[in-house]
């Protein structure tokens, strides 16, 4: 590689950047070999089929090229990324038992309060392993399963085996293959038929070790007629070496079921966030994505909805905020694979301080998918002229009985709008911040309160000292 790595100072992200003394129990050697993969699998006491799956994925990983169509990944040296780090603790079900250091981090991030106040269950992953998991008893009684993937692999091996990486196969792309080889941690949720989980479940991923990769796997199955809201939060402190996050999310939404999946990804600005998320939706089911991309040095994230059952629906609401030294290549893919399926996409991006926000979208309508409707709207806000913002939606239509609308807009905050607000006594800085908050309001209003507050805080942190 030989290229000089550039390191960019960024603004204080406050609590998100607190890093802890690094202690661990097991750490795999740098780089990737079948021996390391076998070590990871052995360390986790996995069944043989999973070990084989990992080894097969490694082969695929080695045979695939790094994608060149998107952001520059040449600074990402895979041999430098430590793939498996196990924190120095066993999994806890009571918050009091979680080690002090780790607890402190999650407390700063507001996790325990959130659980007390508004969540049905919480999982917390620290580096590669889930350190804390809890779920309300009444949900357990209704048959809802919410646990870390490792435990699920033992306790619900059949279900995991049936679904695991069938939606995102290791052949999808190089980083999916990598994920298949080294995945660790993540959440498993199973909602049986006809259960309405009316308060959200939440997982939080924290990557603390320097130069580490996080490869958590999230597998959610919502059976017929059920309903779930799942929230994921991700963050990592800042180190001077590049980190990698190549997680994988597989969502199975069955007939008449509804799943809302919300994430705010707030990685540190040395993170390569190459995450793959897919949902498949059966007849009259609904998937709703709420997706916030902040932080990270490079993101490539395109949550995909496959509407395979008649009348299935998808709704995507996303916000991307690219600041100094960041290239955030995000978007969404929707495949209308059955008749009378509908989709809406509402994407917003903000770029400032030389940040590069790229919306990349795909909307595909299969030949048999007649009677489909889709509306796509992309809006980009440029806060200065050092930044960049591109929009590239691809629309592929393969039959005539459809109704498709797409629109995109790009521009800056209007001087007239600022003047209007100022004429009511609001300072210029506050006027601009108000307009930016208004711009992302369609997303914040979809989030649970504490996340909306977090998102607004993030925006304020990002805007601080750069506006006005």
């Amino acid at each position, binding site marked *: 590689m030989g290229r000089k790595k550039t390191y960019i100072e960024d603004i204080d992200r406050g609590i998100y950047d607190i890093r802890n003394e690094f202690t661990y129990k097991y750490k795999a050697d740098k780089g990737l070999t079948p021996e390391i993969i076998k070590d990871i699998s052995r360390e986790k006491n996995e069944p043989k089929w999973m070990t084989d799956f990992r080894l097969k994925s490694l082969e695929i990983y080695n045979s695939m090229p790094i994608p060149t169509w998107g952001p520059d990944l040449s600074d990402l040296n895979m041999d430098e990324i430590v793939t498996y780090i196990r924190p120095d603790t066993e999994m806890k079900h009571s918050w009091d038992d979680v080690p002090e250091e780790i607890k402190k981090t999650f407390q700063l991030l507001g996790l325990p309060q959130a659980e007390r106040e508004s969540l049905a269950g919480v999982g917390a992953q620290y580096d590669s392993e889930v350190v804390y998991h809890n779920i309300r008893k009444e949900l357990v009684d209704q048959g809802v399963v919410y646990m870390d993937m490792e435990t699920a692999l033992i306790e619900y091996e059949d279900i995991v085996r049936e679904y695991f990486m069938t939606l995102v196969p290791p052949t999808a792309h190089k980083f999916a293959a990598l994920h298949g080889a080294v995945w660790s941690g993540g959440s498993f949720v199973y909602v049986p038929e006809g259960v309405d989980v009316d308060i959200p479940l939440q997982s939080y991923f924290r990557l603390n070790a320097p130069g580490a990769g996080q490869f958590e796997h999230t597998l959610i199955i919502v059976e017929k007629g059920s309903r779930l809201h799942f929230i994921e939060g991700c963050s990592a402190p800042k180190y001077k070496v590049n980190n990698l996050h190549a997680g994988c999310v597989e969502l199975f939404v069955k007939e008449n079921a509804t799943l809302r999946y919300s994430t705010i990804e707030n990685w540190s600005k040395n993170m390569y966030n190459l995450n793959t998320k897919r949902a498949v939706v059966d007849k009259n089911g609904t998937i709703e994505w709420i997706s916030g991309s902040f932080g990270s040095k490079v993101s490539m994230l395109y949550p995909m909805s496959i509407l395979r059952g008649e009348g299935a629906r998808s709704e995507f609401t996303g916000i991307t905020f690219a600041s100094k030294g960041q290239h955030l290549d995000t978007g969404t893919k929707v495949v209308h694979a059955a008749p009378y399926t509908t989709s809406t996409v509402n994407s917003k991006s903000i770029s400032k301080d030389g940040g590069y926000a790229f919306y990349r979208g795909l909307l595909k309508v299969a030949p048999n998918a007649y009677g489909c409707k889709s509306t796509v709207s992309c809006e980009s806000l440029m806060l200065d002229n050092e930044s960049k913002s591109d929009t590239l939606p691809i629309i592929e239509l393969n039959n005539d009985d459809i109704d498709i609308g797409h629109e995109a807009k790009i521009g800056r905050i209007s001087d007239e709008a600022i003047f209007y607000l100022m004429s*009511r006594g609001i300072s210029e800085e506050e006027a601009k911040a108000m307009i930016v908050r208004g711009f992302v*309001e369609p997303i914040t209003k979809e989030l649970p309160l504490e996340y909306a507050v977090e998102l607004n805080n993030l925006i304020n942190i990002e805007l601080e000292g750069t506006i006005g």
Partner: protein
Amino acid sequence: MENKLLSIKNLKVNVEENEILKGLNLEISKGEVHIIMGPNGSGKSTLAYTLMGHPKYEIVDGTIEFDGELINDLKADERAKRGIFLSFQYPEEIPGVTVEDFLRTAKASTTGKIQGIMAFKKLLKEKMELLEMKEEYASRYLNLGFSGGEKKKNEILQMSILEPKLAILDETDSGLDVDAIRIVAEGVKRIKDESKSILVITHYNKLLDFLEPDYIHILLNGKIVKTGGMELAKEIDEEGYENIKLRFAKV
């Protein structure tokens, strides 16, 4: 002269290098209602924007004093804090910002006092009832998707919440039906009754009958060419601007 609120002397204003106001003089005392009338292009809106401090309007000469203080170089928010309010001819649409949040922020900013959520809600509700506005407008995005009349009502609502010393109404009567004019005029009258000063900038004289102005000024080509009482409005009504223009062209 402590009664004096606004004093404009020899005001010359350029917009993108073109001189629009060419030495305008105007004095407004506390509690007075002034009307500025004039044809299109005479500089009416320029005067309104200049008084509010729009950065595009460049003062090249003259002074604007408000409450005894020179305000030539103050930004719009500073002027608002001192008690100037402009009802815009074309209010901006701000997506994602609700009327209530916006007004609470503005009220806190102009008064320097934090506005309690519940107390403010109550105040807003009262003011909205007076303007016959439906409660749901509080949670709608600022001016977004509002009709012309709703936008103007919303301007008057803002005015009644912020309680300025001087309200400048730029063509607030344009594009309103009879009922809306009545409601808006009543809103303005309430301000007047609190002995606030009002400067109405208008092309027509729809609002006049409701307001009983103290002075009427005719603005032509960047200058006030005539000042008088209600009879002046009648003159314009009968003669039209073209004749008045001709008359003053000769002078």
